[in-house]
């Protein structure tokens, strides 16, 4: 995108024309939905209600951080803690596509509930190009159902508006920078959250294990990048596998979970290369995770590019 200012002005003009009544925006505090919120807020101001849902699958401290951020942007924020509902809906579910569809459906359920409260007839989403591309359609194979596409019911009660639909992440970042948003450089985080990083059943307990591991991976890689030991990857996180292995701790046998460290370089998420994280950084991640998380026995590093892998494991 060459003319960022032009895109912003045209979008705002179009949104002003398109949205008549009250609208709600599904906002996670990530780059896409927060940028969409800022655009729509400029266009229709108080008629926009920003809904942020704690699904129970957010990262460490994220719920508080995002609420603060969205309030700081002057948005009319409605916070919903739906974590119990989400955990319940995913009980016993292990198939990745079912997980994603259930989460997408749960989001819509929550948004429709919130919309009714404020009498909104428009739902705004921060959907970007890879979301609908990978969700399949006509000739295109389903790679993974993105939460904002795959969970949509056939007959939506609300009208859907997606101002960033044709953009890729690098372009959304340009828009975010233009609007002066502090989230412009945040790493991407999947809409279904940690649920697609806990392979197998995403219970509250297993999610807690992964949340800690994820925080360690983020912290160590960010510190390494600050020291100049490596470039900051496009995305870096932990995945919890449904695979147990044997270990030994203090002369005692242990038998527990496996964490995968994933870090990739990309521009738009459509292709990605495994990042060359320096070995001492990986080693330190391994030591910290196994020493502080008794459930985890083993930590491994993923060296797969996209394709043939995808960035997230599910």
């Amino acid at each position: 995108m060459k003319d960022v200012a032009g895109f912003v002005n045209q979008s705002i003009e179009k949104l002003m024309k398109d949205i008549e009544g009250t609208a709600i925006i599904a906002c996670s505090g990530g780059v896409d939905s927060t940028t969409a919120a800022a655009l729509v807020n400029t266009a229709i101001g108080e008629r926009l209600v920003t809904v942020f849902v704690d699904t129970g699958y957010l990262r460490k401290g994220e719920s508080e951080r995002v609420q603060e951020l969205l309030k700081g942007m002057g948005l009319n924020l409605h916070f919903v803690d739906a974590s119990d509902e989400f955990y319940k809906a995913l009980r016993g579910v292990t198939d990745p596509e079912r997980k994603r569809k259930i989460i997408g459906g749960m989001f819509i359920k929550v948004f429709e509930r919130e919309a009714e409260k404020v009498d909104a007839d428009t739902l705004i989403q921060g959907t970007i190009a890879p979301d609908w591309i990978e969700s399949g359609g006509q000739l295109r194979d389903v790679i993974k159902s993105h939460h904002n596409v795959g969970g949509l019911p056939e007959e939506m009660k609300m009208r859907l508006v997606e101002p960033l639909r044709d953009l890729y992440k690098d372009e959304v970042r340009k828009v975010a920078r233009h609007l002066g948003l502090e989230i412009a450089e945040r790493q991407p985080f999947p809409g279904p959250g940690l649920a697609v990083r806990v392979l197998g059943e995403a219970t509250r307990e297993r999610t807690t294990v992964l949340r800690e591991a994820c925080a360690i991976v983020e912290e160590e890689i960010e510190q390494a990048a600050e020291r100049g030991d490596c470039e900051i990857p496009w995305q870096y996180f932990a995945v919890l596998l449904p695979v147990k292995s044997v270990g030994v701790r203090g002369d005692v046998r242990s038998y527990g979970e496996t964490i995968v460290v994933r870090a990739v370089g990309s521009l738009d998420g459509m292709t990605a290369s495994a990042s060359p994280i320096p070995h001492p950084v990986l080693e330190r991640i391994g030591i910290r995770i196994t020493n502080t998380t008794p459930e985890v026995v083993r930590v491994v590093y993923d060296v797969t590019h996209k394709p043939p892998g995808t960035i997230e494991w599910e």
Partner: protein
Amino acid sequence: MDIRIDVVDNGGQWTHREWRMLRDLGIDSEIIPNTTAAAEITADGLVLSGGAPRISSDIPKLGLTDKYLDEVQIPVLAICVGHQYMAIHFGGEAGPARVPEYGKAEIIITEPDDLFKGLPERFTIWVSHNDEVTRLPEGFINLAYSRDCAVQAMKHEERPLYGVQFHPEVEHTEYHYEIFTNFIEAVTGSNP
């Protein structure tokens, strides 16, 4: 002059990237279904996208691609399954790859003057294919190969028809903009 290059969608993950690449380079472009009638093609050039269809069993899914090669006399850049289709259409062969390639590979350019003008002899490409061109059609020149794929790129000897097995539209392929710019020049050159 202002030219337009449309992208024919064969259901690829990167169809929209091809559109983006053209847009980034200032070229007017639209994504059109592969069932668009040849008579309705008004662009100055076409990109045929890749896609999930397998060349040995799913040719009907490629719609009217044959018409775009026969009835519309404009430059074409055919990618992945589009490239395989082009080979078969002109009398070559395509089928399951002996060694499928996914992700990173190295291309070795043997004909540097056209689609790869100004580029080094070897560079990194990004690939994702189960099938490949197994015999070059007559009247075509092989432009490049990789360790596991003999025909990474080809060109018709007389018409501006190009086929590439790899994906010049993705960020991880080196010199992606340069390859598209060379194709755009071929389009401009045939629309004086």
